[in-house]
C-alpha cells in the first residue's frame, strides 16, 4: 500500500504544481486527502512507512527538505490513525471528519515548522480547497479505502 500511495502522491503533487501555475491559490493541495486516507485505511503498524511515502514524495515534487515534510505528515497520519477505532471507514462522513482532522493537524505542523525553522510547508488556501474536496470525493475514496483494506472498521 505504501508504494502505491507513494506513486499516487507523486502524481497528485505534480498535478497540483501544474495546476498552481494556472489557478494559483485555488489549486487543491492533495496532502489533506492523502494523509486522511493513510490514517484511516493504512495498517495500524505501518504509520511510519506511510508517512515516509507521503512526506518524501511531496518533498521530492516541491523541492523541500524531506525530513520536515515527513515529520509533518507523520504527525498528521498519526493523529488521524489515533481516531481510527472511533470511525467507521465505510461511511463517507468518517472520511470527511478524518480530512478535517488531517487539515487541522497539518496547519498546526506548518505553524510549528514556521516557528522552528522559518520555513512554511503549506499554502493555507490550497490546503482549504484540498480539504473541501473531501466532501464530493468522500464516497469514492471511502470505497477505495474499503477495497484496499477489506475490513475498514477500526
Amino acid at each position, binding site marked *: 500500500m505504501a508504494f502505491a500511495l507513494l506513486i499516487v502522491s507523486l502524481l497528485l503533487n*505534480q498535478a497540483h*504544481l501544474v495546476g498552481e501555475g494556472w489557478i494559483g491559490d485555488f489549486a487543491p493541495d492533495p496532502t489533506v486527502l492523502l494523509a486522511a486516507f493513510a490514517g484511516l485505511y493504512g495498517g495500524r503498524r505501518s504509520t*511510519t512507512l506511510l508517512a515516509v511515502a507521503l512526506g518524501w514524495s511531496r518533498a521530492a*515534487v516541491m523541492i523541500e*527538505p524531506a*525530513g520536515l515534510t515527513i515529520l509533518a505528515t*507523520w504527525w498528521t497520519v498519526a493523529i488521524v490513525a489515533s481516531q481510527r477505532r472511533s470511525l467507521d471507514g465505510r461511511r463517507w462522513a468518517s472520511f470527511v471528519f478524518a480530512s478535517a482532522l488531517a487539515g487541522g493537524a497539518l496547519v498546526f505542523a506548518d505553524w510549528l515548522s514556521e516557528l522552528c525553522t522559518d520555513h512554511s510547508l503549506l499554502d493555507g488556501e490550497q490546503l482549504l480547497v484540498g480539504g473541501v474536496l473531501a466532501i464530493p470525493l468522500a464516497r469514492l475514496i471511502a470505497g477505495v479505502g474499503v477495497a484496499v483494506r477489506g475490513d475498514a472498521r477500526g
Partner: protein
Amino acid sequence: MKSGGIWTPVVLAACVASVAGWGPIRRAEQALGPMLSIGEALFAPLAHAPAGTEVVDDHRREADLAWASYVEAVRGPGEVCLPGRKVALAPVLSVATTERRRRMKIAVPADGVPDGALVTHRGAFVGLVVDVEDRIAEVALIGDEDLRPLAAEWQTAPSARPVHFLLGSEKGTALVESRSSTVAPPAGQVAWTRSVAALGDDLPPGLLLGRVVKPDEQDLPGGAAEGLGATRELELEPLIAADDLGIVTVEVLPSAEREARTVSALRVVTSGSETTSVRLDVGSRHGVEQGCWVVRDGAWLGRVAVVGWTSSIVEREVPRGTLLVIGAGGSVVPCRTEAASWPEGWVPQVGDRVVTGHGRLGGLLMGTVKDVTQAGFDVEPVVWGTDRTVTVVER
C-alpha cells in the same frame, strides 16, 4: 517496516539530519527524482509558461562586453607572473576563515598549477597556492599562518626612502615585522611587494598588499592620533576582501588549459518552483557536481545546490560575490548586492541588468534589479522560459 520497531528512531534521526541540511541525507533524498518522470510525461505538456523577458541578443552582447572589460580589469595592468609561466583566470569556489587560517579554494587546470603559484586580483596580491588536489587549488591568503613571509615595503612619497619589512602572520593577522625604519608611517599607508630576487625569492614587486594599520588605534584629545612607535607592532589590512571575489588570476604552466566540463540537461517542469528551486534530470552519474552553473543562451539560470545520483536541485538564488550592474546609459559597475559594496554616490536603478560571467562562456545575464533598499538590491532572475534544455557547466 513497522511503526514502533527499529525503523521509527532511524526515520526520526534521518528527518532531523535532513532538516539540519546534512549533505548525505539531502543527496539520498533525491533518489525519488527518476520516479517523477511518469508525472512529467503526463503533466509537463499542460504546464503554464510564465510570462517574462527571455534573453535577447542585445543583452547577450552587452553582457559579453561588460564581462570582457571586467576580466581585463581583474588581470590588472600587466600580466604578473614568473618567466615561463602565464596567467589564467580562476573562479573562486569558496573562502573559509578560522582563527589561524584564511583560505580560498579556486578551480584550476589539472596539473597546471605549481605549488606557491601567485594569485592576484586587479594587480593586488591575494595569496599563494599551498595545495592542489583534483583541479581545486587551495590558496593561503594574507594573514594565513601557512603563508610564507613576504618581502614588502612602503614609501611615503616618491622621493622618500622606502621602508622595507617582512610580512608575517600570527593568529590570522598579517603583521609588519623586521621593518627597516622605526619612523611611523602615516595612517592608511599602502604597502606592496618588494623584489628580493637576489635572495632567491621570485615574488614580483609592486603588487599591492594592503594598508599598514596600528591595532587599537586611539584618537588623542585634540584630534591627533597616537604616534606609531618603533616598539609597537604594526598590522597590515588587506586591500581586497576575499569574500567578495568571484574570479582571480593564478599563475599556471604554459601548457595548462582548463576545460570546464559541460553536461546537457532537462528541467523537470513538474517539480520545484521557477523562482526558487528547480530539478534537473541529471546527477552525479552524469558528472554534475555541487556548485556547477546552469546556463542557457547567454543567461545564468542557477547554481547546482544538491546532487543526487540521477537528479539534482538548482537554486536560483543569486550567489555571493561581485556582479556587474549595467545601467540604462551602458555604464558598468562591479559590486555585490549589499549596499556597502556600492561606489559612493551610485545607486542601482530598478530594471538595470545584472550580469556575471564564465571563463569559457563569457558574459551571462542573471536578471534585472528588482528592489533597491538601503541594505542592497534584489535581483529578478531571468525567466526559465518554455525551453527545458539547459547546460550544466563546471565553474
